[in-house]
């Protein structure tokens, strides 16, 4: 196969490309330029678009003996990922930019260009597994190493995207093995630190970065009954589940700490309340997609057992889900959690699994606590 290896300059993508070469594929390395003004040198473990990262990727390709190119997706990245990230926060939602990048950049813009240029697949250093069912259709599964598993951020991939995706690190028992393999192969990135943060926020201060880009207006902090109990510098600066930084002078009647339960950007209100109200029993999701061929219950509308995960390294919880179709023909996902789950915010992605298999995902539109009459929702 003609394989395009997306090379970030990190150890995972370098080893993934090396394995694709070993498997006998015709591999070309491509580094995605996602920023118009890359910093010249990486500082600490952050960032993934510096000139140093580009050089690291280049060096890895030279060692592997494969061609190397840089493709400029900075405009697309700004529109589809960075601007979207800001807009989502401004609307009171909590987006996942890495997921958005996978959906729109790596497995859309990049994949499309690759296919047009004659490639068969895009290979990345993600820890996830693509299996084939009896009919040869692709299924997305968790990686062998659950600690490193990245199937959550790939949960947004569709059948068409999975058809052309290759994740050679799928069966690796641990990250340490990948580093050892890089060392053995003479790849100088073997000991390069992992990147954890959002790549376009180089100092890792997401809050400070957002505050420079979103206009904040002072507003009210209210309790679940709508009573005003304080003020805030701007509702968009808060996240559901947040406890610190509320600066409420008077303690709650029961003396227990209060948490952000809900952001209401239209009213510029932050709703706070006791911890138990953070426990969510039911989610509704929009922008639904299925990772491969949907299971039969999706079409029949029947409820099915699954596990639900709402953040990259969160634990999956048992759930029952069903699909409803609205008047416009769009799917909505209803997920009833067997055990209530904390820290669920509109804008987050819920990914559904059966065992290790990723079924699909949706963007959380509303979340309901059995202890509150109205669901928490942010209108788009």
């Amino acid at each position, binding site marked *: 196969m003609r394989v395009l290896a997306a090379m970030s300059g990190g150890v995972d993508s370098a080893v993934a490309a090396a394995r694709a070469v070993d498997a006998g594929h015709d591999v070309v390395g491509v580094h995605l330029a996602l920023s118009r003004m890359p910093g010249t040198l990486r500082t600490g473990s952050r960032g993934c678009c510096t000139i140093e990262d580009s050089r690291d990727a280049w060096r890895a390709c030279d060692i592997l003996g494969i061609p190397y190119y840089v493709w400029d997706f900075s405009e697309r990245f700004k529109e589809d990922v960075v601007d979207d990230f800001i807009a989502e926060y401004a609307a009171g939602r909590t987006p996942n930019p890495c997921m958005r990048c996978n959906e729109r950049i790596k497995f859309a813009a990049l994949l499309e260009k690759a296919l*047009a240029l004659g490639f068969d697949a895009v290979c990345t250093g993600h820890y996830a597994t693509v299996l084939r069912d009896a009919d040869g259709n692709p299924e997305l599964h968790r990686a062998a190493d659950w600690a490193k598993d990245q199937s959550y951020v790939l949960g947004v991939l569709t059948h068409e995207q999975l058809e052309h995706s290759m994740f050679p690190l799928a069966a690796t028992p641990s990250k340490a093995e990948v580093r050892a393999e890089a060392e053995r192969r003479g790849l100088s990135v073997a000991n390069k630190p992992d990147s954890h943060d959002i790549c376009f926020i180089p100092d890792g201060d997401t809050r400070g970065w957002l505050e420079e880009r979103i206009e904040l207006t002072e507003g009210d902090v209210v309790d679940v009954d709508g009573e005003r109990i304080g003020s805030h510098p701007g509702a968009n600066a808060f996240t559901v589940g947040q406890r610190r930084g509320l600066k409420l002078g008077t303690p709650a009647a029961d003396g227990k700490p209060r948490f952000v339960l809900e952001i209401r950007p239209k009213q510029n209100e932050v709703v706070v309340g006791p911890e138990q109200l953070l426990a969510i029993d039911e989610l509704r999701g929009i922008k639904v997609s299925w990772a491969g061929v949907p299971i039969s219950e999706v079409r029949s509308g029947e409820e099915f057992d699954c596990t639900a995960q709402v953040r990259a390294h969160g634990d999956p919880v048992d759930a029952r889900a069903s699909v409803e179709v609205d008047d416009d023909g769009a799917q909505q996902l209803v997920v009833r959690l067997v055990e209530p789950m904390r820290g669920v915010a509109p804008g987050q992605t819920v990914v559904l699994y059966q065992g290790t298999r990723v079924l699909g995902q949706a963007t959380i539109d509303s979340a309901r606590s059995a202890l509150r009459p109205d669901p928490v929702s942010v209108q788009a």
Partner: protein
Amino acid sequence: MPVYVDHAATTPISAPALAALTQEISRGGNPSSLHGSGRRARRSVEDARERVAAAAGAHASEVVFTSGGTEADNLAVKGLYWARRSADARHTRIICSTVEHHAVQDAVEWLERHEGAEVLWLPVDETGLVSLDALRAALADGTDRTALVTVMWANNEVGTVQPIGEIVAEAARYGVPVHSDAVQAFGSIPVSFADSGLATMAVTAHKIGGPVGVGALLVGRGVTLTPVQHGGGQERDIRSGTLDSAGIAAFAAAAEDAVARLDVEAPRVAALRDRLIEGVCREVPEAVLRGVGHPAARWSRLPGNAHFTFPGCEGDSLLFLLDLAGIESSTGSACSAGVPRPSHVLLAMGLSEDEARGAQRFSLGHTSTDDDVAAVVGAIGEAYRRARAAGMAGHASTIRTAGTGSSS
């Protein structure tokens, strides 16, 4: 063997240059030393200086060896600016073309940012030719303020040859020195430093069959330059640093060889270039030849240069597809960390950013053959069609995703 059509980037070393390089590098010696080894190395360097001077139509004392074209351009632009400003504090203006190589353009912009220079950028027409009217107007505006004029002899991207004689004549009326980056011109077309009347002229070895890492700035005997690089006082105190006697010997051998064969080689390469242009336009009628139109008058376009834009294509997609087909070409413009940017030269010629993104430069040289041309012509059609299909994938996508409406 890949087909190499990127001679403007660097051209294979010529046999005389390789022989001189290996012979001299095995001998060693510092040309500044006073003992026997030093005297021997010095003899080699000074022989080379005379040969480079002869090849460039200059006097031996006018040759200042450098590490290459970029250093020569920096030394000329900064050295002339500082020297002229020292002589008269009003001399702070630089008149510069909009199609210069980055070695000149970025040096000029640096002086603007850090040294109080005021820059007048000379526009070019759609073929890349500098406007003489604009030059006259710029010189006439504040006659005692211009520190220098800098216009390249021939453009590295589109191959357009500038009217250096006329530019120097205009500047001479105001006593303004002119620098020219002749890196692409020297060895490809007739170039005479003495006849040109230039104050300074940059040349380099590796574009004419010499090794990478050596070049020269020709500095007229009456010209004062403020040094950029300080140290042991070599090269008339203008450019310090131990001389690379092996590189210099090879440079001289390459220059002598290229200039001696120019009368035969330039028409041979130009004929190949014309066949390449005709073949590409036949295979891809949408392709647009940039620079001077075809057929180009003698010496109006570099003999080895063929530059096109391919509508609807990204230049780097074309480069990539041609590379896979075993053809080594270039988008023609510099990049940082490999990120392609629309060429400032093409934008200056009036192209839109989208047009400029589809650029591909084929440059021929002393090893080029009919077979090379045939290979390019044979591959360009398929590469164009694929690149066009890949289109501007960086700008729009048709893959349906979760957020753009794919469900079940």
